[in-house]
């Protein structure tokens, strides 16, 4: 029988971690397929998660492809499907189909210094490539993370970030002053300007709210980064995930297939409609 991409494979929720509470909660889920299958993916790809009866949601896989026994998704509670996911308990079953998208061109980046710039939940799509780089450490140059959120409570992967400091340079920030915060206070683009990462032999990968990306790119351009050195991920409403339902297009590109990873050089050429 021909492969039917629309049929999800069943997986159980193996671990739930509350990253951020409050009005905009973020939870990190680790899922394991019920049946062994050859699901393999590249950093930066996403999967369509099914909550049967509610619908589907395209979420980027935040674990590294080097990890074989689970898939990790960090999900912000936003609407019908994500609210359902947030209500799930360990052992609950969801559907997963994919992987979809073009992934980060990690082969091209070998030997380069990688600078990861994230805001809020935006750390999740680049978490996969960050951990892959750490897992293949000798293939890459210096690794730097510049990451911030509204408040310290809104930072994701808090425990992992502390571990990360031992292995690479980590600069954190929060938008406004708060007691006991010793690092940068201000928006992420301002932190980029403050820390002045070098553009020499470097690739930056940035992800976060659209407005943050806009100003991060400006800050990087001011530091001499060329358009080909700046990578980002775009998101759009998606349903099929395979470039057929017509919904997620930016110009002639379907973000689910030709994206979501774009260099600023490529993204500039597309109609600015996202």
């Amino acid at each position, binding site marked *: 029988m021909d492969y039917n991409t629309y049929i999800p494979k069943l997986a159980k929720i193996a671990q739930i971690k509350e990253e951020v509470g409050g009005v905009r909660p973020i939870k990190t889920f680790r899922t394991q397929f019920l049946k062994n299958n050859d699901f393999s993916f590249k950093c930066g790809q996403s999967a369509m998660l099914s909550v049967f009866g509610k*619908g589907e949601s395209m979420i980027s896989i935040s674990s590294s492809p080097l990890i074989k026994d689970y898939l990790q998704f960090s999900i912000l509670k936003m609407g019908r499907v994500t609210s359902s996911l947030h209500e799930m308990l360990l052992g609950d079953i969801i559907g997963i189909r994919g992987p979809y998208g073009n992934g980060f061109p990690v082969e091209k980046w070998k030997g380069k210094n990688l600078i990861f710039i994230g805001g809020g939940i935006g750390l999740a799509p680049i978490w996969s490539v960050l951990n892959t780089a750490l897992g293949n450490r000798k293939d890459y140059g210096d690794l730097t993370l510049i990451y911030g959120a509204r408040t310290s409570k809104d930072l994701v992967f808090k425990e992992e970030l502390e571990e990360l400091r031992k292995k690479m340079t980590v600069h954190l920030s929060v938008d406004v002053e708060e007691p006991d915060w010793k690092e940068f206070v201000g928006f992420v683009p301002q932190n980029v300007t403050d820390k002045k990462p070098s553009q020499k032999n470097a690739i930056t990968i940035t992800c976060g709210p*659209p407005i943050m990306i806009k100003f991060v790119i400006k800050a990087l351009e001011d530091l001499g980064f060329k358009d080909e050195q700046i990578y980002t991920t775009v998101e759009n409403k998606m349903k099929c995930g395979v470039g*057929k339902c017509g919904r997620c297009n*930016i110009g*002639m590109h379907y973000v689910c297939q030709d994206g979501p990873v774009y260099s600023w050089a490529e993204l500039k050429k597309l109609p600015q*409609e996202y």
Partner: protein
Amino acid sequence: MEKVLTKKFFPKWVEKLKSYKIYAPVKENEHWSYTNIDDPENIDLDYPLTTLSPKKIIFPQREIFLEFTASNEGGTEVKEILPAEEPSVIFGVKPCEAIALTLTDKVFSGDIKDPYYWKRRNQTTLIGISCNTPPSPNCFCVSVNGSPYSKEGLDILMTDIGDKYYIEILTKKGEKLLNLAKGLFKSPTANDKKNTEQIHIESKKKIKRQIENIKKIPPKLKEMFDSPFWDEESMSCLQCGICTYLCPTCHCFDINDEIASSSPIKGKRIRTWDTCQFPDFTMHSSGHNPRPDKASRLRQRILHKFQYFVDRYQNYQCTGCGRCISFCPVGIDLIKVLDKVSDYGL
């Protein structure tokens, strides 16, 4: 291979095709549509344009992807529901509608093929009828590389040459249908061939409308992305879905879960047509909408059809059937919009 069929034998041919599900244009209260017919006498091949193209038979407005059940005791089960095994024949397909199917074929192929579309596509034989006169006052197939007697995408092309049909068999699928009623068909005479050629040549001349300078349009559209042109043109647009739902080349769809019971959860995942003209088509859950107004949505429809699709598949995503023009409740005319595009800024 070419044959002729005397008109009075046509119902007899259809009768021999009993193993297939037969679709043909049928009129009910002034409304023409492709319907499943039982009585071959009901087929009238001399008809104007149907409202919905035969795309609805191969890519129906609603189809089931899968069924799911979920309960604490029974666990979760997902069952794929492919279209039924139902070899079908569609009579009276206009050449523009067949070309449209070759365009949707491109969309549903690629690295990942759409199994639902292809199951129906592969089990359907398309029998076209050439347009001796334009079926609609808004036909413009010639402008978009089509023709009233185009064979592209068809398995058989019939031409009405008076008391007979001239039959051109184009594929093995078409040949199979002919072989089921071999005795009814005769070899064409030289006169038959001449008549058909003559009718074809005349039919092309009868097409009244055309797009001026269509080759200028894709590059022009690229320049016009940020132009206020779209605000002006979309002022009277209603944001209904008529132009896109009636279009034989449009393929956008939605996927939703419909539940029949919530405890245990039992339901189906359904694909339905969708349209870029509805405001919620691209609206994110956060409320952010990349296409927040009528101007950007009209721009999307025109650019998708005459620039993006050209960039991706080297074809205009339009076959010139004119339905969007004939049925638009406020009279937005695609040809006039495109003519303004090619003259824009001059």
